[in-house]
């Protein structure tokens, strides 16, 4: 029974990692851009929510609604004025620019908020749990997983059912031909990064309510997100969810054996998948 419990906790943790990863997966799927500042942007989102909570006395779950449009605007501008300039065949410029951005963000947060760890207040929600049979399930982890599934459903709807989604896919296939359809690739990319930042804000909400955070925790979130994306297969959103769950499961199982092995087990699970399925579990046919 204790193992069943561990597995359930692992799956729930996977929901958090899937949320970290969904934005990364979206941006990579559309413009082949790997944003090394992704984890730090999640942390930035958490601080933005914290700021709204402290200054306006909002609940974090309301503050996220204010923070999300701001983060959308930030993502849009970041893409439009900075990252679009370095997109191209050479992978080095976008990597280095986002790596630089990661360092700037970490240190700006350090300067603004100090290295003290913070937590978003949840009025008892963080410790609430419900009983499912013999297993105790935390309300917040459950909400995280449900949110992750919802985010991926909504993203898939946008991707496959809307005019914007068609433009995303067309631009991803061939930006020059897309421009012959009247699509402005620079704007499409900016909107995509904006949407990714909305997901980042949602991920930040759960990052900050479930555990402590400080300016230095971004890179580790980037790595978990990256592992989930690779395991799932580049560009597959459901694959990303599964990838997140696999990392979550591996970490929880590892921690059950020895708490020091938690992070290591996740990384090793990633390497094992890479060994067996180099292109991930659901590689897309078109690449």
């Amino acid at each position: 029974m204790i193992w069943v419990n561990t597995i359930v906790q692992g799956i729930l943790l996977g929901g958090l990692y899937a949320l970290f990863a969904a934005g990364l997966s979206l941006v990579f799927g559309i413009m082949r851009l790997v944003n090394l500042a992704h984890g730090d942007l999640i942390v930035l989102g958490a601080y933005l929510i914290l700021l709204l909570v402290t200054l306006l006395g909002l609940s974090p779950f309301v503050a996220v609604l204010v923070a999300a449009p701001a983060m959308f605007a930030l993502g849009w501008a970041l893409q439009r004025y900075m990252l679009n300039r370095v997109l191209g065949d050479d992978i080095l410029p976008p990597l280095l620019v986002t790596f630089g951005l990661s360092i700037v963000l970490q240190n700006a947060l350090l300067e603004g908020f100090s290295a003290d760890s913070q937590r978003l207040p949840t009025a008892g929600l963080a410790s609430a749990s419900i009983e499912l049979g013999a297993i105790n399930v935390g309300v917040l982890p459950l909400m995280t997983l449900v949110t992750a599934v919802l985010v991926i459903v909504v993203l898939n709807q946008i991707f496959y059912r809307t005019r914007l989604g068609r433009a995303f896919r067309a631009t991803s296939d061939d930006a020059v031909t897309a421009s012959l359809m009247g699509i402005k690739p620079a704007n499409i990319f900016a909107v995509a990064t904006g949407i990714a930042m909305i997901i980042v804000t949602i991920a930040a909400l759960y990052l900050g309510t479930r555990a402590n955070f400080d300016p230095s925790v971004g890179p580790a979130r980037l790595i978990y997100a990256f592992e989930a994306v690779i395991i799932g297969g580049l560009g597959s959103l459901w694959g990303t969810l599964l990838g997140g769950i696999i990392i979550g499961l591996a970490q929880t199982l590892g921690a059950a054996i020895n708490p020091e092995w938690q992070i290591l087990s996740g990384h090793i699970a990633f390497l094992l998948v890479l060994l067996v399925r180099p292109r991930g579990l659901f590689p897309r046919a078109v690449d």
Partner: protein
Amino acid sequence: MTLINASSHRVEIATSASRLAAIAGFVIVVLLFAAPAFVSRRLLQDLFFILTMLGLAQCWNLLAGYGGLVSIGQQAFVGIGAYALFGTSILLGVNPVPAILIGGVVAALLAIPTAFFAFRLAGAYFAIGTWVIAEIVRLLVAQWKMLGGGTGTSLPNSIRREFWFTETIQDLFGVRAAASRDILAYWLALILVLSVIGGIYWLLRSRRGLALSAVRDNLQAARSVGVDALRMRWFVFISAAFGTGMIGALIYMQKARISPDAAFSVQDWTAYVIFIVVIGGIGTIEGPIIGVLVFFILQALLADFGSWYLMILGVIGIAVMLFAPRGLWGLFSDRTGIQLFPIRRRLVRPMISNDKREG
């Protein structure tokens, strides 16, 4: 079109600037070797820092600038090289000076499984893949209780007193043991950096260098003309790890204190190094030399400002990448045409141009 008259043309690599630079370089190297005789211990320590960062930067430049392999996991090789030195000297009683070489070998060995996994990842994902592997190595080393686990350990005084050559240096310069260790570390750093630069320059001028630039520019095209691209990438990756591992071992021999978080720090051993290469000019040997000097000056000026300093470094790095992607040396070289380490083969015509187009 007229046929090129073969006897009147030569293929040349050297330029007049490079010949001058070779003479100036020789003088500088002699001065650097003699430096312990006339500079302060403090300056020597600064020079040690500059040299080791330059060595790491040259190795990363070989990978990313020439090999197209953008790794952000080089801290794995710094850390493992350093831990190999601590492990072999503390646990096996090997003298730390030869253990530097062991550090390089162990790093090169680690590079084999690293490449095996990371080469499965294309482009940008290769970068994060190397980072993940560096994290794995850090977490594993933190489990190594005999070397202090997560908190790390120090080189015992009994070992530090036994460094090769330090007694000779003490006699030669009439200095104390601690100062003699600094001089030793400085000389070793100088030798290492010169070997790394020399090795890279030799590689780039050889046939392999041509193959390498073909691989970087276009993997598919390089394959189609018969360059064994994959083998080239393995070779570059393992060589860079070997150099990085030796430098890592030397850095921590001089520090005499190690911990997993410090030795596997992505900021100290990869972010700074990338900054140095990018700001100086990626894909050139001159670039990292310029870059490390700029980096050192910025650090000297701004180190007191803590996180502002790092923010400024990040902003400068981004600005260079956006507006001068070939770095300071690229700007200078474009304007003047000067190359100190020329690797391009040029066709030299001693006569006036005679290939007027016909047709």
